[in-house]
């Protein structure tokens, strides 16, 4: 256990330079791309006094290294300041959006994983037969279709023509949870597709190993061979990918959020980029980075758990 603990501490220490790197790159990118945010807000009615006031309030009148160290200090305390455009506290904005994103992303991922791993297993067990071919065809199609097209199509059929489900909007009112159906369905399909393909490939690779032949030769039922012997070994790539996908689900799915008017983190990030709203850009980027780093850590720990050959050194 102490091995685990020191590993976690070391890994967490390692996240600091990674986050610092992400911060620095975002900072440099923002200031390399020209275009003054105050000018963007004022357009063709420039007002020097106002511009000075805004620059002063946001600290943009300081030399770049001063701005950098000031921002770094604040970000280290997870304080991203106030949004240039909405003047809300960025932390508050992200935390307000997080439930919406999580509500959509996490169930879509678990459901997608459940169905996808199942379908992948089935597909691998029946490799190159009718079942496998149809599953591959469907998932290939799903991976290839842009999400927003699928979303618009479902809106049109289920929302507009059949009037079964609300076409967009966030949950509210007694039947509010119905708003969740369409976006969740679209996201689940997406997760289902890539997880099916990943599982199938991973299992097929394992199924050619000698120990599987041995297990089969022992006379074990096929399902037992696949689930207990093959799946366990195929878990390594799955766990790695899934843990990163959790982070992805929490940092927002922009297209789905935009089409379904879902007020999540992804939409916040894209608005921020369009408005050159530096504090919000920094906030959402750092938020995503923290999630990914943590997810990666959890993924590594889980890998070590499912695969004893991996040691935490």
């Amino acid at each position, binding site marked *: 256990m102490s091995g685990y603990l020191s590993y976690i501490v070391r890994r967490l220490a390692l996240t600091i330079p990674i986050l610092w790197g992400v911060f620095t790159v975002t900072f440099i990118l923002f200031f390399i791309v*020209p*275009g*003054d945010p105050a*000018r*963007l*807000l*004022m*357009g*063709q*009615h*420039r*007002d*020097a*006094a*106002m511009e*000075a*006031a*805004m620059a*002063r*309030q946001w600290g943009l009148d300081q030399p770049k290294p001063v701005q950098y160290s000031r921002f770094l200090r604040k970000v280290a305390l997870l304080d991203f300041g*106030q949004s240039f*455009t*909405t*003047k*809300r*506290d960025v*932390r*508050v*904005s992200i935390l307000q959006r997080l*439930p919406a994103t999580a*509500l959509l992303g996490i*169930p879509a991922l*678990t459901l997608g994983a459940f169905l996808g791993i199942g379908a992948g297993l089935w597909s691998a067990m029946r490799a190159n037969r009718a079942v496998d071919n149809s599953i591959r065809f469907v998932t290939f199609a799903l991976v290839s279709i842009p999400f927003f097209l699928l979303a618009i199509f479902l*809106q049109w059929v289920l*929302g*507009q023509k059949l*009037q079964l489900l609300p*076409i*967009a*909007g*966030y*949950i*509210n*009112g*007694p039947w*509010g*949870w119905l708003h*969740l159906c369409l976006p969740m369905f679209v996201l689940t399909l997406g997760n289902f597709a890539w997880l099916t393909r990943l599982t199938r490939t991973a299992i097929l690779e394992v199924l050619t190993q000698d120990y599987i032949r041995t297990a089969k030769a022992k006379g074990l039922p096929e*399902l*037992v061979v696949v*689930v*207990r012997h093959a799946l366990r070994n195929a878990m390594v790539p799955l766990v790695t990918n899934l843990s990163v996908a959790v982070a992805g689900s929490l940092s927002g799915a922009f297209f789905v*959020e*935009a*089409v379904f*008017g879902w*007020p999540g983190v992804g*939409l*916040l990030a894209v*608005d921020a980029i369009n408005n050159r709203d530096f504090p919000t850009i920094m906030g959402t980027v750092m938020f995503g980075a923290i999630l990914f780093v943590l997810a990666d850590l959890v993924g590594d720990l889980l890998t070590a758990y499912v695969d004893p050959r991996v040691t935490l050194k």
Partner: protein
Amino acid sequence: MRLYAGVVRFFAVVVLIHVAMLLVVGALARASRGYQATPNTLRLATSAVQVRSLDPAQMSDSASTSICDQIYEGLVSYDQTTMEVVPSLAESWDVSPDGTVYTFRLRSGVRFIDDPCFPDGKAREFTAEDVRYSFTRVCDPIAMSLGSWLVEERVEGAAEYVERRQQLLEEHPDFWKLDTADLESDRVPGFEAVDDRTFRIRLVEPFAPFLKVLAMAYFRVAAPEAIRAYGAIGNPPGSDTFFRHPVGTGPFMLARWEPDVEIVLVGNPGYWERGADGQPLPHIDGVHMVSRRDPHTAFMEFEGGRSDLTGVPDQDWDRVMNPDKTLKPPFAGRYGLQTTPRLQVSYHGFDMQNPPFGTNKKLRQALNLAVDRDTIIREVFRGVGRPAFGPIPPGLAGHDPDERRWEYDPERAKELLAEAGYPNGEGLDEQVMYVSGTGEVPDREAVALMDQMAKIGVRIRLKMQPWPLHLESIDRHEARLFTLGWIADYPDAENFLALFHSRNFSPDGPNSTFYANPEFDALYDRAMVELDTAKREDLYRQAAAVIIDDCPWLFTTNSETIQLDQPWIEDFPVNPLGLFFYKNLRINRDRTVPEHP
């Protein structure tokens, strides 16, 4: 078998997790009870960008203005169809004979809405002091006002006030911590509360369109108590601030604002104004606006009857509209359709201080003759818009409908091009046209224009940049030919002619072509001090004629607004300024034939 038990356990866990999540969703759904609109509530699904602020001093974007205009009122307002100035919080006004002193008699008995910022939460009557307070904020960089350019040089003492505030900014890096009471002791002498019911503005020099300026969203009267109680700048995170907590006298009150989800306005029960029929305004119970970021989604909400007004998004255009701007069969008769010219002009500006365009009037004239505006409108804008042959859009006094001097004439264009020294374009290098943006339509317009120029032998290539960079290229004189547009801030030709005054060079003013012509400046200056409307219009026409002859722009198009209404919507004319006022709108569920078929 252990394996099957494991599989069953796994299933059970997955099902349990999802049931738990559904319960959370259910709980959340119940917690956010949701706004249940009454049948008499206007429902809007809008793809407009997010509402940023409800502080009138910060009204720069149309989404915020569309909400603010329901909550606050100014001294004067615009008539919804003619755009003439009409009384609002001011009952009447006098202008001194020299045009520099405006004295407003304020309406009595008008109260702010009830709000905890008042003692006992009970509203009080609005007074001239509130007007002075609110107008002073418009000049104040510390209030992060975006409207001070409108008054800074015009109102007595405003420029000095702005300077003092800037000084304060210099001295206090963290100015947002300054004491509000201290800040309020400083005044603009030109804004004077004579007594409770009289408010006076003194201008430095006459400015004829001044009343139209005062009808803009910046000049709304807010309760100073609210600004003091909630704070207007730099509040600690999470606190309630004024821009989120409006307290005005308008026909509606803010009931709910969840960014990117919804905004709910409810009628102000104590609102003072009555409609033409003597009924209290507003006629509707409220406005429920939901955010639908994708315009196509917003349009589907309209088709499903869940939204009452809409534009027509690009994706849906061919399905809904005929080429002649009428509705296609299933839509015709089902929805009302309003097509209104906007007070807007799209143009391509020349850098007037540099060759080749700025130094060669014949060249600029030749290019204007080579623009086939009807084709651009038909091919690029799907028939929406009107050809522009001058700087002032139709609908404003000073616009001359008979002026068609630059009507498409490629033969004459070639002749002029030869006279300009470039027969068939020979000797003229390939020119770069600077285009802003990522949007599809402006690019297609620029491409069409490029083709039309090529027909007379002028080669043009495009350079596309994001909006802030585009403006910077113009200011640096790097762009010699560039695409821009202008939307009226207030309905007066002066707002368009200001784009040519040598005092207004970009970036501090809107003169992006750096056009400087003493003859034009003199006409403009005379118009500003001319208080006789007919004489002023004549001066506007003369000034516009100078611009039309000089061609600092390639005049291209004036845009139009297309709006679809549900049949039950009445009394909501589309406004040429693109503003929305819902107080006179009616919902009549018995109506089956749209008001504007």
